[in-house]
């Protein structure tokens, strides 16, 4: 025993030092210290049977990338407060679905366009409840899977889907090894593939070992630091979707064509998926296409695309509306050629990244306006 005493002393010291560091990191999370001090970024993501990855329910923590914000994932796995199922009578429940722009981890919940539009609607005497179904890196297939499962369970009166226009205009067969994607089925029909479920990483994350490690992430700031630092392999939910998003955007050629009569099988599959819930009922949908201004040179071309998408969707859905989000945002901004990039980025990174406070304010105004119009047209 005496022989091991030095080793024991040293290891005890290491453990005490580790506990001390954990304590310091937790202490730094006290308001307003967390705004500047060294803190650990929370791990919000986990494996999901339907979408490959999603937010783990009932989590609190700090988001640090781009801008610091304290965020909460509710009991049903959405960012924001809990909500009742079914909705309270007389409440208009709106589910906003999309990628990290909707997710808005970079700002506090009350500053997101989701919450702001809820306030604006209530200000206009519409008792609305707007739910955040944003998920970083969500493609058309992931969003469709999310609508089928998470959104459907929330019984919304209206769905607003923010979809990147190349997702629909290019609509290519994808790779479903990490999360859902449209693939060619056994008889060449287009289906939403879920090969990711057989993946080793997914199975590991969904198993007992995964539970243990996620428990560690939820109870140790140091575990989060290690996870963020060495975010490869086991806990790669955060990095994968974003990487995928970047690579898709980089690989996507410019395209400005859509014809409801000559849609590709993938385009048809996407629109079919958006038109029916799993029980066969149909949602009321506002489809907001984003980034169309980067795909088409003229406003006329963009209007044609919107009309064509509307024609295609309205054949499937009675209550649908299609928006060119860039165009609507531009009309809300002052000046002859408004610069949409000022809505993105924080501090020195103005112009690139996710929505800043100005962006959220404008998106809230646009979303509120779109919901109000939709209700008027589809009572």
């Amino acid at each position: 025993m005496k022989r091991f005493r030095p080793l024991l002393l040293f290891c005890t010291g290491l453990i005490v030092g580790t506990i001390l560091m954990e304590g310091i990191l937790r202490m730094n999370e006290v308001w307003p210290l967390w705004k500047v001090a060294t803190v650990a970024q929370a791990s919000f993501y986990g494996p999901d049977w339907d979408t490959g990855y999603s937010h783990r329910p009932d989590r609190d923590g700090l988001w640090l990338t781009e801008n610091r914000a304290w965020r909460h994932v509710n009991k049903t796995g959405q960012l924001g407060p809990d909500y009742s199922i079914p909705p309270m009578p007389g409440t208009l429940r709106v589910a906003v679905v999309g990628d990290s722009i909707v997710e808005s981890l970079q700002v506090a919940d009350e500053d997101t366009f989701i919450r702001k539009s809820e306030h604006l609607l209530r200000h206009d005497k519409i008792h609305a409840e707007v739910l955040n179904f944003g998920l970083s890196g969500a493609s058309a297939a992931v969003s469709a899977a999310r609508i089928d499962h998470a959104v459907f369970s929330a019984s919304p009166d209206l769905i607003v889907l923010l979809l990147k226009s190349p997702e629909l205009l290019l609509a290519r067969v994808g790779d479903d090894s990490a999360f859902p994607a449209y693939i060619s089925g056994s008889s060449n029909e287009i289906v939403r593939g879920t090969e990711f479920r057989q993946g080793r990483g997914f199975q590991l994350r969904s198993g007992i070992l995964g539970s243990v490690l996620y428990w560690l992430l939820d109870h140790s700031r140091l575990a989060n630091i290690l996870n963020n630092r060495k975010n490869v392999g086991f806990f790669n939910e955060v990095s994968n979707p974003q990487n995928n998003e970047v690579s898709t955007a980089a690989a996507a050629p410019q395209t400005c064509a859509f014809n409801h009569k000559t849609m590709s099988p993938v385009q048809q599959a996407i629109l079919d998926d958006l038109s029916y819930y799993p029980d066969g009922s149909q949602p009321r949908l506002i489809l907001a296409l984003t980034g169309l201004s980067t795909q088409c040179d003229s406003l006329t071309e963009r209007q044609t695309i919107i009309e064509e998408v509307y024609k295609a969707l309205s054949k499937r859905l009675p209550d649908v509306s299609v928006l060119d989000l860039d165009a609507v945002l531009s009309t809300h901004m002052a000046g002859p050629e408004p610069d949409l990039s000022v809505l993105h980025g924080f501090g020195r990174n103005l112009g690139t990244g996710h929505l800043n406070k100005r962006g959220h304010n404008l998106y809230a105004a646009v979303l509120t306006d779109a919901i109000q119009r939709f209700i008027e047209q589809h009572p």
Partner: protein
Amino acid sequence: MATVWALWVSLPFPRLVLFCFSAIFYAFAGLNDVLIVTTLLVFNFLFSFLVTKSKLYLAFIILVNILVLFIFKYESFFISGVAGYDLFTADIIIPLGISFYVFQMTGYQIDLAKGRCSVQRDPIRFVIFVMFFPQLIAGPIVRAQNFMPQIDNLARIRKRSLKSTMLPSLALILLGLVKKIYFADSLAPHVNDIFARGPEDAQTAILGAWLFAFQIYFDFSGYSDMAVGMARLFGIRLPMNFFQPYLSRSPREFWQRWHVTLSQWILNYLYLPLGGNKGPWARAFAVLLITMGLAGLWHGANWTFIIWGLGWGLVVFLYRQIGQYLATIPLAGWLVTFSLTLGLWVFFRSPDLHFALSYFQTMGGGAPTGDWAVSFNGWNGIFIIMGCLSLLILHFAESKLFRAPVARILARRDGLFWQGVVIALILWLVLLPDLNGNPFIYFRF
């Protein structure tokens, strides 16, 4: 680091271990940087045998060193005639540590010529003198008469260091890491936002200058503390580079507390040879301006650094005239020195002179420089002011750390348990996520 230390302790040839690791460490900088440093090492080693024979040789090797520095550091500045390269946001483009090792080698040659030290005949020892890995990239700049004897006696030093306490060395490394990762990197995003977007109002402008003053202090002194601590683990004593400069009561005192080894280099090899404070006031003023202007230029190819240096020259000169009156008013000397330091940091941090002048205008309540405003409303303002004052209090508290009672406590506590605690904290600090990617500021110079 632990591996190097273990090899250094266990292998019979400690000098070779330090030589190899210093070379491997610098090799990560890339082939170009290695070629430059190798060429300079060869030239300086060969000429060290000649500089005592004729002043011509000394002049030549100084010229070679300065020329290399100018070619690789100031080329764009002198060719284009304009200096607009924002060192704080752009990539590091100068060879790693060039400003430091060129000064160290030049100082060595001058000391040799003046007979202050003897020539180093062993190339391995010479390489260790120039490239000793803890201080190679950003100092402290060491003098041969202090450092060479330690390299000559490495075997004895190793024996001595193994018997001496490890905890103070580890604590110094920890202090450096805390300064860099906990403080400097936490302040960096806020400083970068203010200087990238430009302050919209006076309080944001003052906040930017205040935060930058502490960011650069924590960043640079953190590196120096780590360098001194790491060297101490190998039994080598490097000079301290910082002595809480923001507690200075005069500009002269500031330079005795800020980047001390550079200040001493400039004093010994530039200011005094140019005549120092001797002669009529106009001459003394000119010497001061030239010296401080060159000290500013040393930091990088931008007018902002030159104006910063010249500003310090002017401040030091003026303070000589009025300092005695300020000394009679309690705290006046400190307040004036601290305010001038903050003001001069604005030049240092600004991307160009136009921005700096506009920044001063905003600081004085004039037109906004940009659109970045930090809200001082309600509790926010109170917390910001409390935070800023805390930085100053921490600065004062730090001065109490380097006292004999603290050293005694560390020596008394030196043992495996406390070593384990400190090593765990060091490891975790190294592992803290670096989402902003902030290299040490002085790596840019």
